[in-house]
């Protein structure tokens, strides 16, 4: 990180951009899905379950952002968000299907 503006390869900069997008958007999706899943699974009244899920969402968001910048490559950052997001989406899909 010695010189921020000169001498860094384009690939590196694209990687940083990719991580930022992953953190902002991917992190949001994962955070929201975690909150939704928790709300669907905890045995609480609907409003209370939703509030609990939302409060958890923000914590997940922070961890997701940290993950995006801690892992070794931008690809892994995306993978680490997409896989749990898909799993959670599947769980929610099954729950929704079970309800209807």
């Amino acid at each position, binding site marked *: 990180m010695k010189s921020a503006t000169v001498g860094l390869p384009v690939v590196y900069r694209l990687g940083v951009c990719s991580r930022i997008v992953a953190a902002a958007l991917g992190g949001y999706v994962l955070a929201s899905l975690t909150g939704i899943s928790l709300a669907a699974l905890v045995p609480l009244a609907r409003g*209370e379950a939703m509030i609990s899920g939302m409060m958890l969402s923000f914590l997940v968001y922070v961890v997701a952002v940290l993950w995006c910048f801690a892992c070794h490559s931008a690809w892994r950052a995306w993978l680490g968000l997409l896989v749990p997001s898909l799993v959670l989406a599947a769980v929610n899909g099954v729950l929704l299907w079970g309800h209807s």
Partner: protein
Amino acid sequence: MKEGFRQAMAWLHTWAGLVFGWLLFAIFLTGTLSYFKDEVNHWTHPEIASHPLDDAAALDKAQRYLEQHAAGMKTWYINLPDERQPYIQVMYPGPSGRFANQILDAGSGQLAAARESMGGEFFYQFHYQLQLPYPWGRWLASLCALVMLVTLISGIITHKKIFKEFFTFRPRKGQRSWLDGHNAVGVLVLPFHLMITYSSLVIFMTMLLPGNILAQYGKQTTAIYDDLMPSRGVPAAANQPAPLVSLSELYRDFQQQAPGSRLGLIEVDHPGDANASVVFGRHGGDRIVHQIGYGRVYDGVSGALRFDRQVSSVPMMIAGGLYGMHMGHFAGPGLRWLYFLAGIGGTAMIGTGLVMWLGKRQLKHAKSARQPFHLCLVAVLNVMSMGGLMLAVIGFFYANRLLPFELAGRSGLEVRVFFWVWALSALHAALRPARQAWLEQLGLAALLYAGLPLLNAVTTGQGLNRSLAQGDWAMAGVDLTALAWGLLLAWAVRKLWRNVPVVKARKVAMSAEGEPT
């Protein structure tokens, strides 16, 4: 980012902190001022006199005023005077859709003959809306909060030996001193930082996470209100006129049910209609847990109690508790000052971080005649975001005293003065060398802050001689805080003045080793 976990976190801390630091500095400073919102309101409305508190009488006055001036409006909102707010506040959506917000004298019950000013409300709204249209300002402020949280956590990870280093302070060592100061203030107020940042997200959670609401409720929007804001569930208008019950009568019932508890926001729905409702919210100072959308709901014609709901479930208590801790309504004077100091600590942590980012990189270019453009840009942004903001804030206070009393659109003009001063300071910072810009802006700010008590005394006759003698601590407190802040800035200017620029300092250090430079 291949260097390992802690290096990666240091990178994140550095860059997220830089990019959002300027805005976060403004959010923290104006948010900190908001802990004394009522006191600032009092200072910006010096004409409004305090009267002994009498809730029932104040309710009667508010009701009389609203029945005369806002009959037929859909909703009325009333805020009663308390020990921090001397006036009655009434609000209602006007016929044109514009929200009327009026200040009544608690003695006469009529419009207070006071200067038009947003006062502390301006700083309060700025700190979460950033003067942007709804909802963009709130979204941007929330993004800042998330980045702040990320920066805090990555900062903790970066400073592994954080608690050990907390006891390390190396004064007069340039860059090291800034780092030690940054760490010390960061750790000292860390619980506050984490609480204030996380709670700000929780406050806006229903705006930030619409998907979560959709997943639970789908299209059943009324069910959301029933669950989260039960007091909103009031019947629609019957379109048959009926006189509104006396609010002070209801207040007597409220007092019997909960002796000693105070009223918060009072909401009257469909006043003058057969289906009128009255909602008595509870005062934020009575309980840490913030309870928006909860309260005692009365029939607005018969005065019968419909229902009374308070936050009771654990998740709601946690969310409401975080909300309440963020706002600090419950805090008495001592705790309020602690909030204020913690807020200043947070602001200082952000400021020292910004200064450090630049100082570290400038050192590398110390030998070259010109600094690279990006460093110049950061230098300008640093001056305008910190020095300039402090000038803008004090500019608002000066505008409050110096703009003519009767001027049309006065309160909007005060706000414009704030932004004009800020813009001018940015221009000044861009035109002057960084060190000169700092010296001049902080020097001017020191004069203006220290001079505020004098300005107040000259323009209103409510200077320290009178406010201290009368025990008007809100008025005196703003004056004294401005004076103290001015002195602090003067000290900073003196330090900066004596502190020779980096390149020279190095040579001095080399020639006279061991002596403090």
